[in-house]
């Protein structure tokens, strides 16, 4: 059991004023068997109308509309998390099947398929063990280099570059698992330190979701705070918004997690 | 009372304006075309001012704009009323191919007249009816002022517009309307002034 304090800040700045801004935010960790979340602050700027509603993956979302003209849009979320790494998050069978299938971002192309063929797992391994095995094999083949990939880069494109960030590690491993129809999901979250959000994957192991982090080549421990889960990074997008005007936009995210 | 979107208000207004532009424009064209009988440039003239639907000054162009508005107003005007605009389009196409274009063009006029009659008779909603008519009246004053129509004709059309304008339920400039009336009563009519004022009479709120 570990207690963490987190703060999450996302800010969008626009070159020109935005008038009507419809947003759907997905950056609110929620409690489950593994993590107990409390909030000390949720603040959205500018003034707006909004409501809460979970999406179909169970992620808490706040959606709304800011009609007043603005050049900046921001969200601040702060609170504490109590993590119990042994807490078992059940994989509901009727909600698990979908995670066996590739999406546009996790579709294995030629390069990932070739790599997959080169692997030689033991046939007695469970799905979870195979995933850990594939993670171990993937780790030396890929380098953590920020700035070469973007949020819409697919697993295949990233793997062809052999470089990328946590989102790419996670999506490549998902693509590999899905070639074997192992149910696995993308997780967006936070880990101790200062910087951006982190991403890893959950693998269904005997009816329970277990987290592994391919970027660090390790199993997730009690320092991982989950924000959202889905089939790929797009399902976990922090904000899906539409607005009128605005010109060029810049998004910055700042996450601070401290062990208490 | 029905609910009418702002877009449909504007479309009804322009349907009225363009149908009038076709009607008055064609009557004018037919007269001039007849006067040119025997002239070698008659064909060119007809092509340019009547049938060239890419020329914004042609009758055909106005008719196609009337059609563009009518086709998206089927639910407001009803299929039966709409059909007269559609028929006018077909007749215009026939006229463009005909060696004696005035005969099918007369049918275009007939269909526009029938469209107005049907709109008046068949459209139950007073506002929908009123906006089409207002568009027609505004366009009439505008055209007459531009076309050097007789003073008395302009005064008559200004009176008809003044009578009609309050019944469409759209907001309009009352000062503008009195200025148009004053301009029309002058001995020497300021035609450009009337055009300017009448174009500014109605504004569709954002």
């Amino acid at each position, binding site marked *: 059991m570990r207690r963490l304090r987190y703060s999450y800040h996302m800010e969008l700045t626009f070159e020109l004023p935005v008038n009507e801004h*419809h947003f759907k935010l997905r950056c609110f960790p929620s409690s489950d068997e593994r993590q107990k979340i409390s909030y000390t602050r949720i603040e959205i700027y500018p003034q707006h109308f909004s409501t809460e509603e979970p999406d179909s993956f169970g992620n808490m979302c706040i*959606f709304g*509309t800011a009609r007043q003209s603005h050049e900046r849009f921001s969200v601040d979320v702060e609170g504490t998390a109590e993590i119990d790494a042994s807490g078992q998050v059940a994989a509901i069978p009727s909600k698990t099947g979908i995670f*066996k299938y590739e999406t546009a971002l996790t579709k294995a192309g030629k390069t990932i398929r070739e790599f997959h063929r080169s692997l030689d797992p033991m046939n007695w391994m469970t799905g979870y063990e195979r995933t850990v095995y594939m993670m171990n094999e993937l780790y030396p083949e890929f380098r953590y280099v920020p700035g070469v990939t973007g949020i819409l880069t697919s697993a295949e494109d990233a793997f062809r570059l052999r470089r990328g960030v946590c989102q790419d590690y996670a999506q490549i491993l998902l693509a590999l698992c899905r070639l074997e129809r192992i149910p696995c999901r993308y997780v967006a979250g936070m880990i101790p330190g200062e910087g951006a959000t982190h991403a890893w994957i959950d693998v269904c192991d005997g009816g329970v979701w277990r987290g592994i982090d391919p970027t660090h080549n390790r199993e997730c421990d009690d320092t991982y705070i989950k924000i959202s889960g889905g*089939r790929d990074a797009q399902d976990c997008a922090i904000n899906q*918004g539409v607005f009128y005007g605005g010109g060029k936009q810049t998004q910055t995210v700042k996450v601070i997690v401290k062990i208490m | 009372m029905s*609910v009418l979107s702002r877009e449909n208000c504007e479309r009804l207004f322009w349907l009225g304006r363009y149908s009038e532009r076709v009607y008055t424009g064609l009557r004018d064209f037919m007269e001039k075309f007849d006067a040119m009988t025997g002239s070698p440039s008659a064909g060119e003239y007809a092509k340019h001012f009547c049938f060239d639907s890419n020329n914004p000054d042609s009758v055909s162009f106005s008719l196609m704009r009337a059609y563009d508005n009518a086709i998206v107003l089927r639910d407001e005007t009803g*299929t039966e009323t709409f059909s007269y605009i559609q028929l006018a389009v077909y007749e215009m196409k026939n006229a463009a191919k005909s060696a004696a274009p005035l005969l099918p063009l007369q049918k275009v006029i007939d269909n526009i007249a029938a469209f107005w009659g049907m709109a008046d008779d068949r459209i139950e909603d007073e506002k929908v009816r009123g906006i089409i008519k207002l568009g027609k009246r505004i366009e009439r004053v505008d055209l007459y002022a531009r076309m050097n129509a007789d003073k008395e004709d302009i005064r008559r059309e200004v009176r008809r517009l003044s009578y009609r304008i309050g019944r469409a339920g759209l907001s309009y400039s009352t000062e503008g309307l009195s200025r148009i009336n004053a301009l029309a009563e002058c001995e020497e009519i300021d035609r450009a002034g009337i055009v300017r004022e009448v174009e500014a009479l109605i504004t569709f709120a954002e």
Partner: protein
Amino acid sequence: MAIPEELYPYSGSVNELLARYGVKFGIYKNGVFNEQLFPFDIIPRIIERREFEYLERGLKQRVKALNEFIRDVYSDKKIIADGVIPEDFVYSGSGWLAQCDGVNPPQNIYSHISGIDLVQAKNGEWFILEDNLRIPSGASYPMIARELCRRSAPSVFAENRIEDNRNYAQLLRRTMDYVNTGGLSVILTPGRFNAAYFEHSYFAELTGARLVTCEDLVVEDEHLYFKDYSGKKEQVGAVYRRISDEYLDPVNFNRESLIGVPHVFEIYKKGRVALLNAPGNGAADDKGIYYFVPAMIRYYLHEDPVLNNAPTYLLYYERDMKYVLEHFDSLVIKDVAEAGGYGIIFGDSLSAEKKAEFIDLLKAEPRRFIAQEVIDFKDIDIFDGEAGKRVPRKADFRAFVLMNDEPVVWKSGLTRFSRNPDSFVVNSSQGGGFKDTWVMEE
């Protein structure tokens, strides 16, 4: 009954009337928009009462099962758990939408308006060809054609007892009202450049539902409103939307979409507005899922299917793959992702080389294709005005089933025919024509 020959002389005049009323469909060719008349054939398809009752039984049963299926795959997914349908066919297509998982639409109706395509074989047997549960179109055409035929040849309608099909607008209105959550019913059109714009505006005129585009609608304080010219807002309770799922709401579906009503999907999830048809219905009208509809009927309704599918093979199953490879030349292969008469390949039409290439593709992507026996269509006569006589053509039949508390089958339908004597393709986008369908009262 026999085909009423008294109608022949009116072939031209009914087509003229259709032109007069602007009964057209839009089509893009090389990027240019054109409105085209939909050629009408004066000879109706006639379905005797007894035969229609049989079709009605089969169609109601099918639509009930399809509705159950959609409800199931967006909730408990029992049909997958029980092994009736492999989950591959539910999840790996593009039809099942994750956003819709767990959503319960008003009155639990998903497919409010279903267009079921059938063909009749030479021996008279009917086969289901395709289920259209997203935005099936076409009912307006026989509806207005009937009106105009009655005007042209009243004696035919006086002498024969034909079910009146002009009640479609009332059926549609009732279907919207049945799920309306309070407020206006509207028809949402993508606009005048949509192929079926005539139908959208005609239905609006006849049902009294307001025809709207996305800009006319706004979501505020968790309800949907129609904005009128003065800025006044009126609540909307039912949207018969004629725009596809991906363009419905940019905040929840395709974020690149320039049209759509932001947040409409969220308030739909909360039960504040009805969307007809429900988003996500593509999960059930995919050509791969089609194969399983008879199994669905048995599974959900514990009944034997009244109407059969055309004999279909799923390349996903090894035994079917084997059969298809052995009988390739006598089959028609369909790409499950294509519609509108595209992506259809007749086995015997390929050269040896193309055939080998295509078989490689089948083996590489078995989930992408289905194969069907070529049905020996019963030809149906059309009246050839120039020759002044009847000539046979291929035709299909789209039946419309509207869902209220119980499914209702419209006593008519759209019969489409191929104008080219050698063609099997009847789609209007590929130059086909249409007929009225008469259901006899006795």
